[in-house]
């Protein structure tokens, strides 16, 4: 047996094998902290492998000699499938759609062996309709702004637009396609302002809700080049170090015209993944000028000046790590910002809801710390930023065009969205 039992459980709700689920639940909660390891031993030579997706545990039981890569990839794929079918991954949605998930599992796994996870094949077999917990409404503007612009100017797709069940299109729902370019930056900037590490991992994701679209052609920047040696075009090159494609992508036009061709399946598909390491084409988006000192009263004064060249959507900064902080007083440059002390993570978090590009913000924190010595200053640090930059890619990768064939009826909508997340953006002080 490979994955021995039909898996799936989340927080002990669907208890097909209730004893196993309970055992797992106990083991997971018995672990210190919120970071359980991937594998745990059970009593009977069985192992639990679990991943966390959407706040749920996805668990498989297996034997010691099976491949962890396969199981984890499968669990991730399964959660993506469930997400495709149910719209959003959360506990209520899962319990609402249990019948669909049973059906899905039945087709994906037989006797513990993975049969298929391709949504193209599965769509022929899956009959149950998804139960959507919330009605999708394009004009619900409260959510606008997580993702940005599109190919049809001035229209904004709400971030929830793509989180809906794939089967909706069957009932004559809106036919839409989303092409997302998502990049994750991990940056370390030294205390002297020197860029110590800068990696960008990116991917192009296609979410397709068009039942009768046979081929998509995605054009990337013509100057796109892979590897160090190869440079194309005369403009500023868009370079990545490594690049890999989904097996369904046909690359015959890629070498000359940088066009990806694929026949989309319903649901989400990661078309291309790429990586740029140790280099950023432009300056890092945020620069921080910290001053940390001790005042006469034994308080720690942290003065932060933050300069931003690009407008982020939301920004959290957690500058200080301290063991004991008694109180905090703050002076922030704008009233809509907030700063709070998080004792459990020993950090001060500075929350900046709006930050216009090319501007500068500052914050002054005064921290009361018992037994503050000069050595304690060493303990301050690193400042970590988490942000989301819409309409922007760190590598400069752009989608030149998106063509669908056969030509889609006019009411179909095509969205191209760019976003850059901070995977880890650390500035040492």
């Amino acid at each position, binding site marked *: 047996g*490979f994955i021995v039992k039909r898996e799936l459980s989340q927080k002990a*709700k669907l*208890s097909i094998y*209730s004893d196993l689920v309970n055992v797992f639940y106990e083991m997971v909660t018995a672990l210190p*902290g919120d*970071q359980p*390891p*991937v*594998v745990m*031993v059970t009593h009977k030579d069985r192992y639990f*492998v*679990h*991943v*966390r997706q959407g706040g749920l545990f996805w668990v498989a039981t*297996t034997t010691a*000699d*099976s*491949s*962890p*890569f*396969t199981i*984890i*990839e499968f669990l*991730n794929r399964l959660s993506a499938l469930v997400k495709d079918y149910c719209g959003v991954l959360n506990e209520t949605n899962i319990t609402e759609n*249990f*019948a669909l998930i*049973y*059906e899905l599992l*039945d087709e994906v796994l*037989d*006797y513990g*062996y993975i*049969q*298929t996870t*391709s949504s193209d094949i599965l769509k*022929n*077999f899956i*009959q149950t309709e998804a139960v959507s917990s919330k009605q999708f409404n394009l004009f619900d503007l409260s959510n606008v702004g997580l993702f940005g612009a599109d190919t049809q100017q001035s229209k904004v797709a709400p971030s929830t637009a793509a989180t809906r069940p794939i089967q909706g299109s069957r009932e004559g729902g809106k036919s839409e396609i989303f092409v997302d370019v998502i990049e994750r930056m*991990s940056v*370390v900037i030294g205390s002297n302002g020197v860029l*110590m*590490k800068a*990696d960008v*991992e990116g991917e192009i994701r296609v979410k397709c809700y068009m039942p009768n679209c046979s081929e998509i052609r995605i054009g990337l920047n013509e100057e796109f080049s892979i590897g160090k040696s190869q440079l194309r075009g005369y403009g500023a090159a868009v370079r990545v170090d*490594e690049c*890999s494609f989904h097996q369904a992508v046909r690359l015959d036009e890629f070498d000359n015209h940088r066009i990806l061709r694929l026949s989309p399946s319903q649901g989400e598909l990661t078309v291309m*993944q790429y*990586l740029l*390491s140790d280099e950023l084409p432009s300056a890092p988006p945020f620069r921080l000028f910290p001053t940390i000192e001790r005042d006469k009263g034994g308080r720690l004064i942290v003065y932060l000046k933050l300069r931003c060249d690009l407008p982020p959507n939301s920004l959290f900064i957690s500058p200080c790590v301290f*063991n004991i902080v008694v109180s905090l007083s703050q002076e922030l440059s704008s009233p809509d910002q907030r700063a709070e002390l998080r004792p459990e993570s020993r*950090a001060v978090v500075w929350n900046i809801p709006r930050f216009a590009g090319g501007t500068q913000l500052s914050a002054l924190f005064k921290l009361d710390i018992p037994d503050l010595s000069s*050595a*304690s200053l*060493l*303990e301050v*640090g690193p400042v*970590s930023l*988490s942000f989301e930059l819409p309409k922007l890619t760190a590598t400069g990768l752009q989608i030149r065009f998106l063509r669908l064939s056969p030509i889609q009826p006019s009411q179909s909508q095509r969205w191209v969205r760019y976003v850059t997340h901070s995977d*880890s953006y*650390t500035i040492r002080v």
Partner: protein
Amino acid sequence: MPYLSGEETVKELRRALCNPNVHSDPLRHRNAVLRVIRAMSQGVDVSALFSEMVKACATVDIVQKKLIYIFLCSYAAVNPELSLLVINTLRKDCQDPNPMVRSLALRNMTNLRLSSLVEYVEQPLIAGLRDRAACVRRVAVLGWAKLHDLQPDSEIDAAVVNELYSLLRDPDPVVMVNCLRALEGILKEEGGVVINKPITHHLLNRLKECDIWGQCEVLKFLQRYQPQSEDELFDILSLLDASLVSPHPPVMAATVGLFLSLCGSLPAVGLSALRRAQGPLLAACGSGSREMRFTALCHIQLLLRSLPGLLGAHYKRFFCGYAEPAFIKQRKMKVLVELVNDDNVAMLLDEMKGYCTDVNPDTAQAAISAIGHIGRSYSDRSLEILVGLLGLKQDHITSAVVQTMRDLLWVCPQCSSTVCLALEECEDTMQDAQGRQALLWMLGVYGERISSAPYKLEVFIDDVRNETSAGVKLELLTASMRLFLCRPAEMQDMLGRLLHHYIEEETDMCVRDQALLYYRLLHCGKEETEKVLQGRRSDPSLGVLIGPPAESISQWAHSFNTLAPLLQSTFKPDSKPQLSDALRCDPVETSGNCPDKQMDSSTHIQTSSSAAPLSLSVSPALSPEKFERLWLQPRAQHDEHAAEDDCLWIEESIQCPAVFQCSAQSLQASLQLVNVQTLAFTPAHARPWKVYLYTRMQLDSRGSTLILGELVHCEEEPVNEKERTRAPAAAPQEEKTVRVTLRQQPRDDETLKAFLSILTTVLHTHSSSNETLP
């Protein structure tokens, strides 16, 4: 909500299912069934509804059918008789024109798992194998495996087995893979599915058609195949080259696993495959899924055991992200420690320094001990950071730093002056017993160089009544004794108080006995006491001159792509075996915790002087520096009779074909059995291959003689004719000799010859045992 009123729910559901109005409306009927399944998934026992559900099974609505089958499969075991009623419906469905219905019926028929139903299932299963639709064949093939599992004793018809083998050529790749899986289960007794040459090549050719799961499975099965010739092997390998760099981590891992098992006899090919796979592995380390990252990191750790420094240039990829979970951070640090080299050490330590103040104390501790590890090769830089951390005056950090310093001293005694200076400044009292133990050990062993040591001990001794940890008590005793030996004036009063307290008031017998032992020992005089208490200050088994050797791939190849690498405890201080070897003879152990051991070593010296003239011993230990100094002393004359300052050099050749191919650990272990201590190794594949060792031999009356030795194997150098005649039997095996150079001081020809014969025996047994390994 779900667990309340289970019975009420069941009653209500039954009412709904029996209602004729519900039956007439397909949608309402389906909803009623849906509610049953929901109750089931919420943990309500709905098995009482079995007969109602069986009745509801006769429907044309596929969704309802599916739901009911889920129910039936869960409760069939409880109601075997009633399940018989379902079989007819299922068999009828197997004839349905819709292939989806056929496969559904067949799958659930086999999922019922009732041995009483086997006779009804076989016939549809045979028909299923020949079905037109691939999805039915897939189900039918696996159905046989389920059937076999249900009745492991009954033989599956040979005709079926043949049919399954022939279905390996099925046009549908999933059917092919399912056949492999089913045959593996059915033929488990006979060793699983046979993978012969035609099947292998068939599978390889069709690999591209499978999806990634199928590819992984096929690659795993192919591990069983042994190519008949080297040409065939290389054909296979070149076919698989594309999968080796596949962007899908599972395929890449399965391919690497296959390469490693195919190239068992060609380690160089295996190594180059690993080098090629490093790109995809690194990519997996940056995967969006943290579980996948963790898996990749664990496997990179494996890789580094054989290819140390492989990813040295990519060290930045292993820097920890701020929000990463602790288990990933700790793994990354372990990898970083392995990647350190002259170019990146500054950056790496700077980065590590940031982790030392992590919010999670375990992560902080792991970072500190990682810095200590780097200190084994870059002691100055690391110690600077460690000493700086002491200034933070944070309890858990201080404790971790002190422990790390102790471990570092044990391996690199040359760091002692810096550490002593730092300890002088450190005035904290730690809450953590481990940290206090480490501090006490250092105060005891290096007490003569820390001027404030007695005052630090005094704090402990004054507080002795509040001490709870037995380990700390024992360590305190030993430390006080040691310090007393070198600074009697300051310690006498304190030691007296301590001994008195432990002998009179202590309830822990182990501590009390130790105190009594020391008390009596003091009566025997200073020399005796010194002899007992002078334990090792450093670990002589670790290669200081040369870094730890690379392991051969075969040591870990079997665990690649299994759960084993992920299972290693996250909190284990060391992952490398040779380092855990070092921990086994942890200083605390040898000096304090085990009084028996202590006595052992001293009695050993006494008894051995009177008994066998050929007893070897490694105590007192020889530091690597001293070894180096002695070894590099100029050899006055190079011949056998260099009697200069009572020292003797000889050179010999020993025939032992494979000794230099085996791992350093095993050789070291076997030499330790005869009390020969190895000081340093070159990696197994390096040429010339060298080992440095030493031992002491008991002479009849004149005390002991120290023997230093060097083993060299060097392929280029022709071996002396004269020496080859000593072992004529092995003469045809050219260049398979190890040249031995020994230095003895003071000289004694008898014992030296005896030692040489011991060494020869060890090397012979070792190389022969190594040869028998596949």
